[in-house]
């Protein structure tokens, strides 16, 4: 547990990282470093997108699975690490420059 905390803290403190979030299976944020409205917005939107991406990957090959999702935009980059199914999905979102 402590390692997890450490790693989380390290990632958060990394240069260029704006914020991190931990989200559970239904898209409810468990931990976040951003403000409430942003968190909720990101959680909701990314949840759907991740589900879609995972569904896509698995539709193509059911034995495959989504490991990571990165969205690069002009201003930011959003990185999402979904969990393997059969365990409540956690999602992290961080936006480095």
């Amino acid at each position: 547990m402590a390692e997890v905390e450490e790693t989380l803290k390290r990632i958060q403190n990394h240069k260029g990282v704006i914020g991190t979030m931990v989200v559970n299976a239904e898209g409810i944020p468990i931990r976040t470093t951003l403000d409430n409205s942003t968190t909720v917005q990101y959680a909701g939107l990314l949840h759907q997108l991740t589900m879609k991406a995972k569904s896509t990957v698995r539709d193509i090959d059911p034995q495959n699975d989504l490991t990571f999702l990165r969205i690069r935009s002009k201003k930011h980059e959003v990185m999402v690490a979904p969990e393997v199914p059969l365990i409540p999905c956690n999602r992290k979102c961080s936006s480095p420059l």
Partner: protein
Amino acid sequence: MPRPLSALPGSPNQARRMSTTRKVSLSVSKVSINHSKVSLSQSRTVLSRTTSGLTEGKEKVSLHHPRRHIQVFDELGNDVTPRPLFRPDPHFPGSRKPSRLLVSQDVSLGSDYAGSYTMFQNTLNPSLVGQFTRSALGSSTVSKSSASTTESMGEDLEESPYRREAVSIYVDLQLKKEVPKVLTKEELDAEVDIYLSETETLWLFNLPTVMHSIESEEAEKIKERNMLYETLCKNRAGNDLYVERVMQTFTGAPKHKEVQCDKILTEEKGIMSTTWTLYDAYNALEFPASTMKPETGKSESMLEVVRKDQDSKYLSTTDRTSENSSTIDVESIIMIKIHEEEEDRSELILKSEKFQQDLFFMERVLMENIFQPKLAAYRQLPILEGKEEEKKKEEEEEEEEEEEEEESYPQVEKVKQSEDDEDTEVTEEESVEAVEEPIPPNLERLWSFSCDLTKGHNVSSMAWNKANPDLLAVGYGQFGFREQKRGLACCWSLKNPLWPERVYPSLHGVTSVDFSIGSPNLLAVGFYNGTIAIYNVQNNNRVPVLDSSEFHQKHIGPIWQVQWVEQDRGTAGEEKREILVTVGADGRISKWVIQKGLICHDLMKLKRTSMDKQKKENEREKKSEALISRQAPGMCFAFHPRDTNIYLAGTEEGHIHKCSCSYNEQYLDTYKGHKGPVYRIAWNPFCYEVFLSCSADWGVNLWQQDDFKPYLSFYTTTHVIYDIAWSPKSSYIFAAANEHRVEIWDLHCSILDPIVVNIANPGVKFTTVLFAKNTDCILIGDSEGQVIVYELKNMPIHTESGREDAIDLLLGPEAHSI
């Protein structure tokens, strides 16, 4: 006796007469009928007034129509009185006999209707058949039928008034009725002839008989049937089987009934069935061990995780229900749970391994993002051309940011060092600007492996993993006796330069590390207190797999080098067995074998030789020099690349001994050239005759195997040289790390000067140097716990690099001149 009546309509007088004669006999019925008729007529017709006279006197039935019929005239005076629908048919066929009875009655009844009625009765006018079917039939069948029809006749008679009455409405009341003449007595007595004629036969039903020949096949059957039928007809009369009955179905009284049910709750639910949900379903059937935690209820507020010291295992077992992932619609089912459970579940999430792994990935991806250009340069991947300028800016920014980041660490030296590096190195921007000038070989700093943990430690040794070229083991420990403190062994990965993958803290300083060749997950660590430990880096366990601290054969002094060596057991015919060879300051070189634990054998005991020699040379008789130990502390060793039986050992005395594994008492040879402890010996990876040695006497010596004097010496600094390493790519290039500089020598270019010199900032010493195998990079460890990765740029390319005889060529003409 009624006389035959003449039914001629034209003789109402006769009719009248008839009526009078018949009056007596049928008075009763007549009267009754008359009354009924007249009454009806009175009620029905306008001309009832005219018939009123009839009621009074029946003898004289005024057939004369008073002509008080309605006449309608229009405006113009035209006679537009509606005509009757029925026109009396002048044709009078048919028998009169049956009609006679009726006619007489009719005549007696009313003169008004007499003519018409007789006509009706007599004629079987097709137009009236429909209306008077019964009466007509009745009349017609009187003549033909049997007695049974008389009854019907009687019925007809009863009913006929009504019928007639019905007809009488349509009857044209303008029908001229001739006034019946008064019959004289003579006329009455005269005989009247009545002629009866038969009407036409109306066929209503004709079932012709079917004739069959007696000789036909079915004759017998037909005869039987005929017989049966005859008996049936005979029996019909009183037979119970044939009873005339009338049936009436009762229609039940309908009733309205209302029913009200509870409102049926409907809910829409949708599931999308995809390829993978099916796959999951089938897999789950096969592997029911996979469990899925039920979803938590939705909460609007963000949860602050409250740390609870609960048994998470207990919670997880009670909460787990095995559900099929394909049957769960994530958005649909919401179970309401208490707040605590949610928190616990989020705790579980945070504790789960998967989460850890995800974090791991996330961190690595971040690192990749940040260090991407550096890593690309390391791996010699081309940096994208299109974003050159942005890249440069990024790099500049990154470098600046790195500097800023490093400033966040309370390490002043780092910043200075990076600045220093930038000052001394030729940066890429400068190199791009000055394109035309030949760029000298230089080191470009890519990144450094460093973190909080390693800050302040001295890097004592580095080793690459044999299987995974991205994994680097670094040992942190102080060299000097007085500076001893806790040590550290870390495994760094190229993918995360900011945090080590594995951290193995220890009480004592780590002096040497090496990865195993045969089992690349084993890491051997030598400590300052003489123990060695073997860690398994596959898991994160900080406890070593094997530890030699309890061995009685362990080294007493610090272990200065550990190395895994694959040795041939040529004599025994077995495969190559891997042994761990260590050299300690107690003067022993020992090999360790992992067979149910560590087994230690001494390969060699390093004896002091210089003392003997000096004794011999200088003071033969002096025996008073007390030796603390007859062993010479060994500092390093190097096994021959080809022949693993032969190895070189460097001692603190400065001697290099060539030894063999077969002999553990005697040296094969001794190379004397250094005056200080030999810190490192390295065989040339291409040319097996040549080896390098560095020592604390500020110098690096190049030896040839057969020569006991150094072939080349490099004394360029006045500092201790801690480490040397040959470049894996070229047989001419080697690097040497002394306290303040790292020098890279290229023997092909110059044997007097290094081609690259990298100066450290004051306060930081370079202690170790290591070449990267597949790339042009060099790793330099310093006394501040940093391992900096430099890229060798613009190194001179030699066509003969790598050739074994290359250095022989170099050494050739001078090889034998000593």
